[in-house]
């Protein structure tokens, strides 16, 4: 899956406008990166990529780039 599609998916679950996110964006700088967003990410990766990520893995995420690495 191309990066652009992945970014779109992330913007959707964070309810952000298209083009808002960049690979370098730091998660803690995003207001929308709350517990619901974290749970939504876990669900997204399960549904779209069939892998289960742990709470530990989520806690270690720093930037959008880190999330993109998990999306496979």
């Amino acid at each position, binding site marked *: 899956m191309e990066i652009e599609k992945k970014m779109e998916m992330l913007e959707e*679950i964070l309810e952000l406008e298209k083009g808002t996110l960049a690979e370098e964006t730091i998660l803690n700088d995003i207001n929308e990166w709350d*517990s*619901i967003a974290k*749970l*939504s990410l*876990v*669900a997204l990766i399960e549904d779209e990529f069939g892998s289960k990520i*742990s709470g530990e893995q989520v806690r270690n995420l720093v930037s959008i780039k880190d999330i993109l690495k998990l999306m496979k």
Partner: protein
Amino acid sequence: MIDLFNFNKKKILVTGASSGIGKATSILLSKLGAKIIMIAQNKERLDSVTKELDAQGHRWYSYNLKEISGINLLIKTIVEENGTLDGFVHCAGISSMRPLKMTKYDFLHDMMLINFYSFVELVRVITRKGNYNNGLSIVGMSSVSGIKGLKSKTAYSASKAALDGAIRAISKELHDKKIRINSIIAGLVKTEMFEKYKSNIILSGKINDIERGDINLPEPDDIARSITFLLSDSAKYINGTNIIIDSGLKYD
């Protein structure tokens, strides 16, 4: 000396028997003389639980309860091979946390299949003439989330509320056949399901009482004891209702 719970030679079907509350229930009932028929998916785990049961003569069947259409044949086989049933406990179930925005039809349906649809189908088939003995008692495992509703648990809460609602209706229909059906409404219990839940809660960054160990939580065996009570003749007049096991706290 009186025997409050005598299950000597009683045949009890337990789903979700490979872990948690289902496993604890199977073990406890076997210690009271019952013959346990276990249903779960994982064969190794089922085999392992069988070794922990008291006495011999227990059976297990590996089956994916999401296959609703095959449940009829499964029960037919179980009754043919083991005899008519005296009790049925439904401990099979899943509980993932998922925000509403990600709770699409497929996810919701998946949860309903195992938590609710399989339960109704099992009850429907087991309560057919020739499959059960007089005094059959049925127990469904439910959750405080069904009566309270919890964030990110839309699907789970709905499936448990459905189970409790169905039990109330079914109890009225089966009353004349002298079959009882009830549910256990549990709060948090120390099972694998709880471990998963804890790791999700930690995800949200909230350190709470449970993580700090302040709250004393029941073990699966504690729940098994109430299930045993409902299955027994000591609960002869208890029908269409719930036993709430949550230390009065209705956990968040």
